[in-house]
């Protein structure tokens, strides 16, 4: 029963990892940009959540109503103002610029909030649980997983059922032809980053509710996000959710064997899958 419990807890944790990964996956899918600052942007969102909750005293979940639009605007401005200039045939400039951005964000947060670990508190929500037979499930992990599924479904729907999604896919497919069809790729990329950071905002708040965070927490979130994307296969958002779940389950199973093995066993699962299926489990995109 303990193992079943670990499996279920890991699955629910996977929802959070899928939220870390969804933004990365979206950005890479649309504009082939690898965003090294993604983890730090998640942490930035958590800090924005902290500012909002302490300034106006609302519940962290409600704080999303402000943090999500704020991150959306930051995403659009960041893309139009900075990242679009780095995109081209060479993959290196965006890597370097987002790496630099990561350093700036970490130090900016350190300056503004000190290195003390912070946490978003929601007393009722953090401790609430529902019993399922002999297993007790936390309401927060359940909520996180539910939000992850809803977000992935929403992104998938946006991609395949809306005019904006068609534009994303057209730009992803062939930038030059998309331009000729009247699409402004700079604007489309801006919208993609805005959407990605909206998801990041949700992920950041849920991260802050689950664990404590500090300005240097971003790197770890970035790695988990990357691993979930790669395990699931590029270009497939449901695959990303599956990747997050596999990573989460590997971590909780590892932690069950020995608490110190949590992160390590996640990496091992990632490496094993990478060795057996380098393209990921459910790839939709080649290259």
């Amino acid at each position, binding site marked *: 029963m303990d193992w079943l419990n670990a499996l279920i807890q890991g699955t629910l944790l996977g929802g959070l990892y899928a939220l870390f990964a969804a933004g990365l996956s979206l950005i890479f899918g649309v504009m082939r940009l690898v965003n090294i600052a993604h983890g730090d942007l998640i942490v930035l969102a958590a800090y924005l959540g902290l500012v909002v909750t302490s300034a106006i005293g609302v519940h962290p979940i409600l704080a999303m109503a402000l943090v999500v639009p704020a991150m959306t605007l930051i995403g659009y401005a960041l893309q139009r103002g900075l990242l679009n200039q780095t995109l081209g045939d060479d993959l290196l400039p965006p890597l370097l610029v987002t790496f630099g951005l990561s350093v700036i964000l970490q130090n900016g947060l350190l300056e503004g909030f000190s290195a003390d670990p912070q946490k978003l508190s929601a007393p009722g929500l953090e401790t609430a649980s529902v019993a399922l037979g002999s297993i007790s499930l936390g309401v927060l992990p359940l909520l996180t997983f539910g939000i992850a599924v809803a977000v992935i479904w929403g992104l998938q729907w946006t991609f395949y059922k809306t005019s904006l999604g*068609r*534009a994303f896919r*057209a730009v*992803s*497919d062939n930038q030059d032809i998309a*331009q*000729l*069809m*009247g699409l402004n790729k700079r604007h489309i990329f801006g919208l993609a980053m805005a959407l990605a950071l909206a998801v990041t905002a949700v992920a950041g708040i849920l991260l802050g509710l689950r664990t404590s965070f500090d300005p240097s927490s971003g790197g770890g979130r970035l790695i988990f996000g990357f691993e979930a994307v790669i395990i699931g296969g590029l270009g497939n958002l449901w695959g990303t959710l599956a990747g997050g779940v596999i990573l989460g389950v590997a971590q909780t199973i590892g932690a069950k064997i020995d608490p110190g093995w949590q992160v390590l066993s996640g990496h091992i699962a990632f490496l094993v899958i990478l060795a057996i299926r380098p393209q990921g489990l459910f790839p939709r995109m080649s290259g």
Partner: protein
Amino acid sequence: MILQLDNLSRSFGAVKVAQSLSYEVAEGEALGVIGPNGAGKTSMFNLITGTLAPNEGRVIFDGQDVTGASAAKRCRAGIARSFQVPQPFSGMTVFENAMIAATQAADLRGAEAERHCLHVLEQTELLAKANVLAGSLTLLERKRLELTRALCAKPKLLLLDEIAGGLTEAECQSLVQTIKDIHASGVTIIWIEHVVHALLAVVDRLIVIDFGKKIAEGEPRAIMESAAVKEIYLGIEADA
């Protein structure tokens, strides 16, 4: 005048793809363009659509100087093209390819955009393939998709780049009929084509391009009979 090229020049190092190229296209006209391979015909289209910037000269479309305008802007203004080598969004369906042009370039919305796409797909005989991924189409179907996408953008000026190349005689005939219908509906056309009989069935006027220069211009049949064209295509000395 819907389009006016004013002294356009562009070179890549020593290679001149356009040399003081000037001509005008009247609204509703169908202009044919011929010339040997490498004469700069496709580059001329790139200059008109904005994917290539000229070193000198101006492009005036619909009364506006669009020389500095982006390809996207020119497309919205009403310049659409089909590519010689079809370049569909291969991961998207035929209908989605059409919808991109209708929603982005022609600014149509929702049901109106869908209706327009269905109408064009019927015109270009691709309706049966609407839900097929563009990447799985045959060459002929890809050429039809090029035409479809261009038309979904509701162009004032349609640029066709060797759209009849590689088709069978029967296919060519039906395509010519389609293009005639499009022209009759009021769309101005510039058509680059090596399949001369297809071209002559549609165009009102012909220009000949070689080494990026316009070397002849006028009534199609007279041009085809002219010494300059014979020299280029048949290697007969003009003054022999």
